[in-house]
C-alpha cells in the first residue's frame, strides 16, 4: 500500500494506539514483499550450495531473461486483478502478437525493430480493448469473457499460422540479439521490464485513476456510490493488460526465435500464480505491481534452479502449486491476525 510506505515524517500526531496500529499495518505490508524476497534468497542460496554454477553471470542473466516476460505480463494482470477482475486471455495474446510481429520481418523487408514492437503493442491493445468493452459495457464477468477470448484469440492464431512457423533464419540479427544485449552485465530486456514494473507500480500508487482501481476491487458498490466511473477504469485496466501482453509477445519471439501457433500457451495461469504469490489479493483491493513482478521472478528462478539441479520439470509445476497455496494461506493468516489486532486497538482507542 502506498501511503504506508512513505517515510514517517508526520505532522504532530497523538501517541498511543494510532501510531502503533500504523506501525503494525506498515510492517505487514512490508512483510508481503520482503517475504517473497526472503523465499527467493533462500532458494538461490540452497541451489547455489548444491550447484555453484547457478551463480555464474551467464546463468543469472538466463534466469532474469526467463522471468522478464512473466514480470511484464504480471504488471498488466495486477491492474486487472486489483480491480476484482481477471484476464485469462494474455497467453493467447502473447502467441498472436509473437507470430504476427515476427512474420512482419519477412513480409516487410528492412522494417525497423521499434515499429515491430509498436505493432505487437497495437495487436495486444486491440485484444485488451475487446476484453474491456465486453466486461465494462456488456457487464459480463471477466472470468467468462477472457476465458472465451483465450480460445478465440488462440483460434485466430491457429487459423493464421496453420502448420507454419517463423524460424530464426527469417529474423534479423539485431532482433535475435535482443536477449543477449546487456548493459553492465544486466540484460537490456530485464532493465526495460524493470522500468515498466516501476512505472506500473507508480501509476497504481500515485494517481487517482490507479487508486480507483483499488477502490473498485475493495468495494465495487461503494466505488459506484463514491462517483467513480467503474466501467471506464476497468476498461483501461484490460486495455493496459492487453497492450503489455502484445509487447510481451514480441519479446517472446526475440527470445525463443521459433514461433508456431502454440507460443505462449498456458502463460495466463503462470502469470496469475505469480501475481498471487506476489501478494496481490485474488479478489482485488490490495497488492502491488512490484510484488507481482517479484512473484514472477521467484517462479522463474525456481524453474531455472530445478533445471540446473537436474530435477524433473514435474517438480517445477508442483512447487509452483505449493507456493501458491502457501501464499494464500499466509495471506489469510496475516489478514486474520491483522484484523483482530486492529479491532483490539480500535476498541482500546475508543475507551
Amino acid at each position, binding site marked *: *500500500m*502506498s*501511503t*504506508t510506505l*512513505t517515510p514517517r515524517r*508526520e*505532522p504532530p*500526531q*497523538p501517541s*498511543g*494506539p*494510532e*501510531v502503533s*496500529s*500504523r506501525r503494525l*499495518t506498515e510492517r505487514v505490508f512490508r512483510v508481503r514483499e520482503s517475504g517473497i524476497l526472503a523465499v527467493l534468497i533462500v532458494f538461490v542460496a540452497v541451489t547455489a550450495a548444491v550447484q555453484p554454477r547457478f551463480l555464474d553471470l551467464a546463468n543469472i542473466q538466463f534466469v532474469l531473461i526467463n522471468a522478464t516476460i512473466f514480470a511484464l505480463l504480471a504488471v498488466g494482470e495486477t491492474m486487472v486483478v486489483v480491480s476484482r477482475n481477471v484476464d485469462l486471455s494474455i497467453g493467447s495474446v502473447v502467441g498472436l502478437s509473437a507470430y504476427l510481429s515476427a512474420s512482419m520481418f519477412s513480409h516487410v523487408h528492412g522494417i525497423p525493430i521499434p515499429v515491430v514492437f509498436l505493432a505487437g503493442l497495437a495487436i495486444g491493445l486491440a485484444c485488451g480493448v475487446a476484453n474491456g468493452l465486453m466486461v465494462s459495457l456488456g457487464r459480463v464477468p471477466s472470468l467468462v469473457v477472457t476465458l472465451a477470448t483465450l480460445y478465440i484469440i488462440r483460434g485466430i492464431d491457429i487459423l493464421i499460422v496453420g502448420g507454419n512457423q517463423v524460424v530464426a533464419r527469417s529474423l534479423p540479427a539485431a532482433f535475435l540479439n535482443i536477449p543477449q544485449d546487456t548493459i553492465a552485465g544486466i540484460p537490456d530486456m530485464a532493465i526495460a521490464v524493470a522500468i515498466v514494473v516501476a512505472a506500473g507500480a507508480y501509476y497504481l500508487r*500515485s*494517481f*487517482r485513476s490507479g*487508486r*480507483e482501481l*483499488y*477502490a473498485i*476491487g*475493495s*468495494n465495487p*458498490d*461503494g*466505488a*459506484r*456510490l*463514491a*462517483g*467513480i*466511473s467503474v466501467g471506464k477504469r476497468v476498461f483501461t485496466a484490460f486495455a493496459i493488460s492487453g497492450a503489455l501482453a502484445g509487447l510481451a509477445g514480441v519479446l517472446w519471439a526475440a527470445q525463443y526465435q521459433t514461433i508456431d501457433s502454440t507460443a505462449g500457451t498456458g502463460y495466463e495461469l503462470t502469470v496469475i500464480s505469480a501475481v498471487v504469490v506476489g501478494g496481490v*489479493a485474488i479478489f482485488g*483491493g*490490495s497488492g502491488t505491481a512490484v510484488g507481482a513482478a517479484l512473484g514472477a521472478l521467484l517462479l522463474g528462478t525456481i524453474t531455472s534452479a530445478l533445471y540446473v539441479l537436474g530435477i524433473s520439470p514435474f517438480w517445477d509445476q508442483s512447487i509452483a502449486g505449493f507456493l501458491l497455496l502457501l501464499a494464500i494461506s499466509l495471506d489469510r493468516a496475516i*489478514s486474520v491476525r*491483522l*484484523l483482530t489486532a*486492529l*479491532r483490539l486497538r*480500535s*476498541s482500546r*482507542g*475508543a475507551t
Partner: protein
Amino acid sequence: MDPVPGATAPAEPEAPAGPQPDVLAGPRADAPAPGPGGADGPAVLSLQHAAKAFGAVQAIADGVIELRAGEAHALVGENGAGKSTLVKILAGVYQLDSGTLLIDGQPATLGSPAVARDAGIAVIYQEPTLFPDLSVAENIFMGRQPLRAGRRIDARAMRAEAARLFAELGVRLDPLRVCRGLSIADQQIVEIAKALSLDARVIVMDEPTAALSAAEVSRLFQVVATLRAGGAAVLFISHRLEEVFEICQRVTVMRDGRHVMTGPLDGLTGDDLVRAMVGRDMPVRTDAERRAPGGQVLTVEHLTREGVFADISFDVRAGEIVALAGLVGSGRTEVARAIFGIDSYDAGSVKVSSRKLRRASPTDAMAAGIGFVPEDRRQQGLVMDMSVQQNMALASLRRLGRHGLITGSAERKFATDWSLRLRIKYGRLTDPVSRLSGGNQQKVVLGKWLGRQPTLLIVDEPTRGIDIGTKAEVHRLLGQLAGDGVAILMISSELPEVLQVGDRILVMREGRLAAQFDHGQATEERIIAAATGQLEGQAR
C-alpha cells in the same frame, strides 16, 4: 412480472385516522420557526411530487421534501414508507420517474452519484460504504485526492487534511490505518469526515445512530450542530423519535411512499408523529378464526448471539400465530435464522415439541418439522430459473423420489395438488418461476414448505412487495394453517399485518424482546412505542 390489479399504486384509502395528519400539515407548516436559526433559512433543496417505481412496486408515489440552510430536518415513517428510496434519489443512485428537484431554486437532475456529490449533497448510508483495503485518508478523498505536480496524488497533504478533519470532529483516528476492522461508529466518522471535506451543503444521514452507543450518539449530535452552524442542511432519518426531537427543527412524515406532513417539531409530540406515520385502517382477523392454542410446539430459551440478539425467550403453540415485530435491524430475522439453524448462536436453546435442536443445522430443524419461508424469496426462497413444479418439489424430494430418482410425473402431481390448494396462478407448471408475479412466487415458496406438512412454519415478511389482493390471500392462508393446528412464527414490519394476523405479538428492539402483547391489547401506537423505545403505555 404479471401486471397485478392494484399493484401499480398503493390505493390505500385515506384512512379514518386521516384527519390528524392534515391538521398537522396545515397552518403550522407555514408558521415561523422559533428554533435557533436555520429552520427559516432559504431552501437549499426541494423535491416535489417525486415518483419512483421498481417494476410493479411503487416505492415513492408522492415524495416531497424541502431542506433549508442551517436546519436539521427529520424524515420519519414506517419501514417501507419510501425513506431509503428518497435518500438514494438525493444521492443520484436512483433517477426520478417524475417530479421536480430544485437546488437553490434551480431545476436540477442528479444523474449519478458524482453529479450529486458535485451539487454538494453528501449521503451517509445506514450501512457504511467504505473501501476496507484502503486507508482512512484515501477513503475520505477517493476520487478527489489532493494533487501535486504532474497530477500525482499528494499523500502528505491528504494525510494532513484528514488529520485536520478528525481534529475538527474531535476524534482520534489514524488517517493511515486501513478501514478494515474499524467499528461502525468509526466508519461513520470517516463518512462524516468525507461529507465535511466535500463542503457539502446538504448532508443526508440514513439511520446514523442505529449502531452507535450513547456516547457516540452525543458526539454525532455535536457534529450535526457544527454542520448546521456552518449553514448546511442536515436530513436526519431515524426511528428513534426522541433523537428527532433532540436535534431537529422540522420534520417530514412519509407513509406508503407518500408525503403526509411537513412542519416544525415545536408543539408536536411523539404521539402526533406516530399517528401521522401509522394513520390507516386496520382490518382485523375475526375472532371466529382464532382458537384456543394447543400444546407448545416451539420453545426458545435465552437464545443469544453476541452482538446480534440476546436472551430471547418465547414459545409458539400449536394453532397459534405469533407475530415478531420490530424495526429493520432489530434482530428479528437473525433470531429466525438461528432457530432454523442457518446461523449458529452462542447460548440458549431451541426446542421443538420438547426435542432440543442441534445448533446450526437446518437439516435437523427440517427433520423436527420446521418450515422456513425467508424474507428474500428471490435470493433465498426460490431458484428463479427452475420451473414452478421443480421449485415446489424442492423441499420434498426424498418423499417424491423412488429409489432416489425423481420422476416428472410425481413432481407434477405434487405441484398441481398444492397450486390448486393455494390458488396459484401460473401459465404452465414447467414455466420458470421467475415468470410468476411476486404474490404467486410467494405462494410457491409457501407450497414448497406446506408439502412437508410442517408442525412449525416460520415466515419472514410473507407479504413484502406483493399486491393487496394477494396479501389478503396469504393472510387467509396463514389463518387457515393455524386453524389446522400448525404453529406459525411470522416476522413482519407491517403493523396492520401484525395486528390482523397475530394472536400474540412480540416486539424486538435492538436485539432484545422489548414487549409482548396479546391480540386484544395491541395497538399500532403501542408496538411502535415499544419498537422505538418511546416509553408509552406498558411498553418495556
